[in-house]
């Protein structure tokens, strides 16, 4: 008889080992899926995990990994604060959109002025936009005890409509001949978040993502805020006694994740994407939730998880192109990763016992 026994404290070994196990299990289950589709599973797995890093065109795809991972890492780091404290911001996608709109609007307000101040102002506007959007669920939770999960999620759809209205209306390119979409910021040098070193994939968003990881790590480990967040999440009652102000913590956690998501949106719209279009949102805010959990809500883990997620995207594209794997199979493959992670998670909180329960007759 197999039964589960709750561990008194989560196992440190399994906390570190489960992501690795989840990846291995995903490779095996994914391999079976690909084989069932009539593709060579070894080749498919190699195309997804190996080729983007060391394949023939890796000199192009390696920097692209950074470009793809940067917004995921930036958003996930922000989310991890709240998730650790039991404050669930599910609406990072909306904050990402609003940050991008604010940032782009700032840039377009200055167009075509060529001044060094433009980009820093855009960064501030992007962060402010994300922050403001996240403060809506924060204030509603603090004042009326609404669920931040529902409010932040619903605001994603509101943000999507604002995005559409902006692309068709206020931010539309006056030289775009009536088509929806803003001016391309890549063609406005003062606002362009270009690669800092050509071909490296490093732009200000990537740099900010790395900085966010370091700062988050220090705050979590060394700062009283990190302590409060952990205590609030692990023992809410004890947190009260330790003098944690739940309203303040809610505002800080939602505000931080909103500002970082807004920054991610700003760096994306001014760099790789270039334009506010009705379809600017590409799901980074939701994927970042997976990244945050895959990385165990730990900044360094999130860094690795973001890169891994980017790898499955870019490798998945290669597999579609070279092996004609359907896009849906790649999405299922990515879904398996989260599934296995959650399943194996059990091992860090429970012990598996084989045999009769102790003390049973």
């Amino acid at each position, binding site marked *: 008889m197999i039964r589960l026994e709750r561990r008194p404290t989560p196992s440190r070994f399994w906390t570190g080992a489960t992501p690795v196990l989840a990846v291995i299990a995903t490779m095996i289950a994914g391999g079976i899926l690909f084989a069932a589709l009539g593709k060579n599973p070894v080749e498919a797995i190699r195309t997804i995990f190996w080729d983007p890093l060391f394949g023939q065109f890796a000199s192009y795809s390696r920097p692209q990994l950074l470009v793809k991972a940067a917004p995921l890492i930036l958003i996930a780091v922000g989310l991890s604060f709240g998730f650790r404290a039991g404050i669930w911001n599910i609406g990072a996608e909306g904050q990402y959109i609003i940050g991008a709109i604010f940032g782009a609007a700032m840039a377009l307000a200055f167009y075509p002025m060529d001044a060094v101040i433009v980009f820093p102002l855009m960064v501030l506007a992007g962060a402010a936009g994300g922050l403001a959007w996240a403060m809506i669920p924060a204030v509603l939770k603090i004042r009326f005890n609404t669920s931040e999960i529902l409010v932040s999620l619903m605001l994603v759809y509101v943000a999507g409509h604002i995005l559409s209205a902006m692309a*068709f209306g206020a931010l539309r390119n006056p030289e775009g*001949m*009536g*088509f929806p979409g803003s001016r391309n910021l*890549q063609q406005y040098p003062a606002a362009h978040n270009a690669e800092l070193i050509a071909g490296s994939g490093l732009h200000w968003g990537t740099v900010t993502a790395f900085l966010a990881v370091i700062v988050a790590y220090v705050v979590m480990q060394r700062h009283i805020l990190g302590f409060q967040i952990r205590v609030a999440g692990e023992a809410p009652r004890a947190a009260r006694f330790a003098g944690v102000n739940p309203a303040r913590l809610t505002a800080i956690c939602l505000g931080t994740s909103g500002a970082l998501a807004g920054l991610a949106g700003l760096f994306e719209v001014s760099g*790789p994407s270039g334009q506010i279009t009705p379809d600017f949102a590409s799901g980074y805010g939701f994927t970042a939730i997976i990244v945050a959990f895959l990385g165990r809500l730990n900044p360094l883990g999130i860094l690795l998880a973001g890169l891994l997620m980017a790898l499955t995207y870019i490798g998945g594209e290669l597999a579609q*192109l070279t092996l*004609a794997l359907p896009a849906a199979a790649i999405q299922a493959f990515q879904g398996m990763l989260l599934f296995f992670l959650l399943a194996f998670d059990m091992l860090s909180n429970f012990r598996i016992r084989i045999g009769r329960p102790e003390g049973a007759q």
Partner: protein
Amino acid sequence: MKRRVLLATAAMGLGLATGGAAFAQGMDNVKACFVYVGPIGDGGWTYQHHQGALAVKEAYGDKVEIAWQESVPEGADGERVMTQMALSGCNIIFTTSFGYMDATNAVAGKFPDIKFEHATGYKREHPNVSTYNARFYEGRAVVGHIAGKMTKTNKIGYLASFPIPEVIMGINAYFHHAKLANPDVELVVTWAYTWYDPAKEADAARAMLDQGVDVITAHTDSTAPLAEIAKEGGNAWGFGQASDMAAFMTNDDGSPGPRVASIIDEWAPYYVKRVGALMDGSYEQIDSWAGMPEGEVVIGEMNDAIPADVKAEAQAMIDAITAGDYHPFTGPINRQDGSAWLAEGEVADDGTLLGMTFYIEGITGDIPQ
């Protein structure tokens, strides 16, 4: 924008069909690659492009290799996918949605030896970028005639997506021919603000049906409007859009279904022609806007809900357009405000059509701005 049929408002101003550099030497083997905005299984826009891709393979067999990628988001992801395609040896890359416009031109600039073909856009910033689109308004004219003849309430509907020239052109072509067939006809336009959202499309169709509209054409992709029309039990009719949607042609009991005809996007002739040109060395930069004569706009089989005489009239119109004898926008046609647009016998020029931002006379309501 989720896709595509955004036509160049003032494409003319950008200098069309530059003729460009002819790429004289041919190729023995071509790898043709396709970037799709949706899943191949969408049953509409992307499905039809993929049918075109398969036709290329069918036409040239072992001499071509095709590769594709579905559900590619517009923007940064599109640019990366095109670059990967270019690096992996594609000779010609078709990008099948309007939103790939800037990315297509950016990547084309980095790979001057690879040909890029962008659907429905207007930017050709490099000699290796061509653009292509289809004259869907020809199909709208034919279904407009059928709608005018079939309506019993004298109210016909147009389920519109976005207020862009492509859609306005469709509305005008549909209404103009309905009115020619039935002078008492009135048009109801409902804006769904989506290309693909079955729930919204069904709601919009329902709203029109509840107002007494009994024939609807949709400018969105899903079959949801037809499913909604089907609930009227033979008292309302619709058309397949982008693909044939033949599943709605006949009801389970054998009676004619709600889809009386359809407007099909056929990209195969264009794709086969372009890949062929690349192989025989006659490839040139172009801006293609083809329609029924080239087989790119096709009316799907008309079912028996349409009376035989109306079928014959519709077929005659198809034949005339195909032969080049008839242009759906032939005067006299006035603008909505009553001012003259086309004089008797005058034919609309492409520039005006591509930048169409006005309704013709007889349509009530305003174009949303």
